[in-house]
């Protein structure tokens, strides 16, 4: 009965990402897409918050969006899983509902 939360905004620019993290339940999943992928970067001022969320929730990053912004697997926090658009579809179908934090 868990929820997939999609986040498409940079946590450095908007509050949407933090708000999503504040409304997670253990077992939920977070998928970063579009500008949201910059929040996955390790060593940033936001990384700590995301790493704590990763303890009880699964964290995913849309790889095509990450690559567009010049980043790859080695640039993101530990525990974040890269997926492609097909993986995005699978996350939608395997979770009960999707909440888009626009």
């Amino acid at each position, binding site marked *: 009965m868990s929820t997939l939360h999609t986040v498409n905004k940079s946590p450095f620019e908007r509050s949407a990402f933090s708000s999503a993290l504040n409304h997670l339940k253990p077992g939920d999943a977070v998928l970063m897409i*579009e500008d949201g992928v910059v929040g996955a970067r390790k060593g940033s001022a936001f990384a700590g918050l995301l790493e704590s969320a990763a303890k009880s929730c699964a964290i995913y990053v849309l790889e095509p969006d990450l690559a567009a912004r010049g980043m790859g697997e080695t640039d993101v926090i530990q525990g974040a899983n890269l997926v492609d*658009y097909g993986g995005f579809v699978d996350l939608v*179908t395997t979770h009960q509902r999707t909440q888009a934090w626009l």
Partner: protein
Amino acid sequence: MKLGILVNEGPYTHQASDTAYQFTKAALEKGHEIFRVFFYHDGVNNGTRLTVPPQDDRNLQQAWSELAEKHNLDLVVCIAAAQRRGILDEGEAKRHGKDASNIAPGFRISGLGQLVESGIVADRLVVFGD
């Protein structure tokens, strides 16, 4: 599975329409059914046939129209949102005394009830926006 798609932003300015398109294509490739793609807010601007993107750029309206034709997709533009933003089909143009229409092939104009219906009928509703 049966999926509903909601696109809340126009083409080019925000990535929402691109991501929704890539998602929809991937879902079809995986054998899922797309119940409907609903365009709301500035999303209605995806449905104008008057765009002329640069030659080295993607043509989002055309991409949606082609995907719709290939997979018999139902692309619905919200009528209230479309009127505010100047997206009209021929009937709407006539009804409001406008001298031109601009809706693109494969898109149809209808009411917000079609979005609510997507939420009811589809197994999952996936939202793309700003």
